[in-house]
């Protein structure tokens, strides 16, 4: 059952992945998309290669069963191909929208995340400045003095039995 890997395909897969990852790490959405397409092609080939040795088309009557390639990874790859199409079209629509709004299709940094990082940095500054205890919350006594229930005001309820 053990099959020897196909050297040419291994090289092709590696090159597709290297190029695809390189492009995916860019900021231009259209380059990212091209990277995704390259990686997808590489991944589909990978599925096929690790799925089993090559053979004839898995169609009964056309190829003897012993010589067939494994149909299961093929079915998975088939769906993956069409999904990639859907995703490419979606990313292209995003790139177009980004161009419409910003006149470019670059992925910007998330401002909220950057704000968070800045805040954490100042917090760190605060810690070293005030010492660790500086920001500790209030003590138990202070908290207890603050805790007041929403109690009835008896004066308004004199109508009830004045027992004592």
């Amino acid at each position, binding site marked *: 059952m053990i099959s020897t890997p196909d050297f040419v395909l291994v090289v092709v897969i590696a090159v597709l992945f290297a190029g695809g990852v390189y492009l995916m790490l860019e900021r231009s959405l259209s380059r990212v998309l091209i990277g995704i397409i390259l990686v997808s092609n590489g991944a589909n080939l990978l599925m096929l290669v690790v799925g089993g040795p*090559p053979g004839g088309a898995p169609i009964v009557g056309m190829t003897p069963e012993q010589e067939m*390639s494994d149909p299961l990874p093929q079915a998975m790859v088939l769906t993956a191909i069409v999904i990639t199409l859907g995703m490419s079209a979606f990313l292209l*629509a995003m790139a177009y929208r980004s161009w419409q709004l910003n006149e470019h299709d670059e*992925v910007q940094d998330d401002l909220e995340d950057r704000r968070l990082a800045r805040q954490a940095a100042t917090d760190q500054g605060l810690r070293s400045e005030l010492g660790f205890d500086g920001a500790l*919350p209030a003590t138990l006594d202070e908290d207890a003095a603050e805790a007041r229930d929403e109690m009835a005001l008896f004066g308004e*309820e004199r109508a009830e039995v004045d027992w004592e």
Partner: protein
Amino acid sequence: MLCSKSTLLVLLLAHAAAALGAPTLVSWLGRRAFLVLALVPGSAAAWALGQTAAVTSGEGPTMTLSWIPALGIDLAFRLDTLSWLMVLLVGGVGALVLVYCSAYFSPASGNLGRFAAFFVGFAGAMLGLVTSDNLVQLYVFWELTTVFSYLLIGHYTTRKSSRRAATKAILVTTAGGLVMLIGIVLIGDLSGTYSITDIVAAPPTGPVAVTAVVLLLVGAASKSALVPLHFWLPAAMAAPTPVSAYLHAAAMVKAGIYLVARLAPGYAGLEAWQLMILVLGGFSLVMGGYQALRQHDLKLLLAYGTVSQLGLLAILLGAGSRATALAGLALLGAHAMFKASLFLVVGLVDAATGTRDLRNLSAIWRRLPVTAVMAALAMASMIGLPPFAGFVAKEAALESLLHGGASPAWLDIALLVAFVAGSVLTVAYGLRLWWGAFATKATIPEIEPVRVIRPPLLLLAPAALLAVGGLAVAVLPGLGDQVLSPYANTYPAGEPGHLTLWPGLTPALVISLGMLAAGVGLFAIRDRVERWQATHQGPLDADNVYRRTLRGLDLFAADLTSLFQRGSLPFYLGIVLLMVVILPGGAMALGTSLPDRISLRGGVPQLLVGALVVVATILTVRSRRRLKAVILTGITGYGTAMLFFLYGAPDLALDQVLVETITLVVFVLVLRRLPAYFSNRPLAADRWVRLGIGIAVAVTVAGFAMVVPQARLEPPVSAALPQEAVAFGGGSNVVNVILVDVRAWDTMGEISVLVAAATGIASLTFLRSRTRDSRRPRDHVPGELPVLGLGDPDPMAPLRRPGTSSGSRSQEWLRGGRTLAPQRRSVVFEVTTRMLYHTMLVFAIWLLFSGHNAPGGGFAAGLITGLALAVRYLAGGRYELAEAAPLHPGLLLGSGLFLATGSGLIPILLGGEVLQTAIFDLTVPLIGEVHLITSTFFDIGVYLVVVGLMLDVLRSLGAEIDRQGEATGHDSDLVGPALEPAPPLRDRL
């Protein structure tokens, strides 16, 4: 009693129903709703009272319902003496406190409905906890009480202090609960059952069992606020006072004690148990009393007093001898009554005077004389004055400790010392409490008389009942002995004890008097004690440790977040990819070896195609021009398709070619609006980093490709698929049968993704409703039909015959052609389109139906139909597209999904499973034999979804971008290289 078994279940359900209905009830009746709700826990107490005789004779009701039989977990309930006592306390005190609530809260106070719901819900959870006979079930109720306690402590959600206290309570108690859960699982695993009765009857032994017991005790300590996990309880005083009286004095904090009492008959002999009970209980008893002496807030004083008393209870119920256990059970009941009563009194004083700080209260006894007397009764029980319940319990405890009963003598002595010290402190802080709340203090001015208002009966009665009850149960002779002994006698060691009101002049009584005197003395020198306490702070404050830990955790989390959450997509992606390299790649490098030989069996064709793909990929990456990059990507795609074909996957090759073509078309449609060149790259150094990551990933993946094929041990699951495809799937194209039959669920999920993608594309592009813009030429009034590109320069105009652009219908090849300016039309393209379009459609349909037996199927057919539509659009513009497919794409997507789902459901009607294939052979007149396979309809559904996606893509990224271009004045034609400014020379390849 009739149906006493299911009564408990009914009671639990009643609590749940009352909790759910409480908000409505409160909105109807206002705070009077508390009186109605008091009936629910009250009925639980009444039920327990009705079972007294049965419980005492050892025939209390039990009930078991099967829950998770595979894990040996049942819903098991039983009412023995210990449970009976707890149900009485939980139900009785719960009902009284609810009555108190009806007068305590202002009618105008907010969120009373929510409060009532949580309160009753808690009472139900507590009832379930104390009647559970299964450890896992007990844990569930245990955590429920934790959650309700959290919600009740945090009742004033707008207050920071209240939220902080609630967080503290839930963190400590759930952490303890989780530790306990580990213990539960360990012990359940060892003994093969989770039934508490069975475990205690035959307790497992060994180091694992000891560990489990220690873990269980940690859980009990966290719940019952034993030192060092006690600090959440004083903080929990942020809760409304009725909550403090019920949860944090009478009921919830007793859960840990209850667990100790449950397990003690089985485990009190363990040395680890004895040590833990001594340390946890002893320290709580002494430290709690010591801390109570220095508090100024009356609730805090009571809270520390509770810590102290809980420590005492842990000692008595955990020590292991029968006599101590009996004393412990008596104190358990007495404490619930006097402590709840005292809390209610403090709430009353607070309500009447507006303060709980004993430094501001003076001569209140004159204003609230009855309240003061009730407080004195409860306090007398707490400090152990005869003839109150507290006295009876403490005498019995002292007696049993003096006689010894627990196995090692050192334990008895240590426990006795802790007991004496704790009792002296209790006397001192008990007196301090009454003095602080009611006594006349020379140094403190009296509160303005108008501010002190007498309380109504509903507020006073619950506190009074609990205080007087402490007297009543003690006075009834032999009562305690009779009802409590059955459980105490399940303890393995020692002589049975006795509860007596007047034991005579025994050594115990002498010691008791001595403790009382010492306590009074300690109270008398309170000023000096307070000053000494102020100057001698303990070195280790558990609360401080908690705060520091939490603060440190916050800072650590913030630092970690800011380190990784940079907001940069490439950064995130880089991290993810590096993880792929490090983790699975590392595992591969360490655990596997490369194959000793590789194959080149693909021969020259594969080598040539492979080389083509490699070169095209490298050129794609280096390309600076969008269009060039896209076309090169297309070449890698076509190359991949050929590799698929050479590998023996014709279906994949077909689909890949089609998808590649369509991707190319769609890319070009969008690229005409984007700049011709990619924007400038930032830094060269960045590029090297990216390249490094790319190569690392590539090496890892190549490693997988080499290693994984070797790893196969078993024949593939698909070995039998070819025969099954023919026999059950009715098709000889195995890949297609897999798609529409074997793994049809996958395909179903996939076409749903396509529907989502299509909808997303349309939503991103259409700024208005997409239904409005599929106008066909005939929808326009003749003469108003817009013509695209009419103003473009047309050097050939003099050569044209006038009128060609809008010629009569018989002269045109495509109807949409009229909407294009003459210089934009291509007769060759229009003629070819006209001739090819229908051929392509027929070919698609043929592929769709032959796909079950030959390469093809719904995906390929849908893609070819999409290509046909694309050709029409490219040749004739957006009006031509509307002419070719006057359908709304949503209709295609929806009906496709519907057909696929529906064809999956039909087999159910035929008695099969979802998506099972049924095969019919019909004889149709004129046509003859028809071989009908239901999965064909599934494939048709797939086809329709793919066509819908294609139509949405063409309409959005083609037609709508055209329309927007026309509307905004941007030309919508393909951007030719000449129209763009020439790129800098270095960027040209």
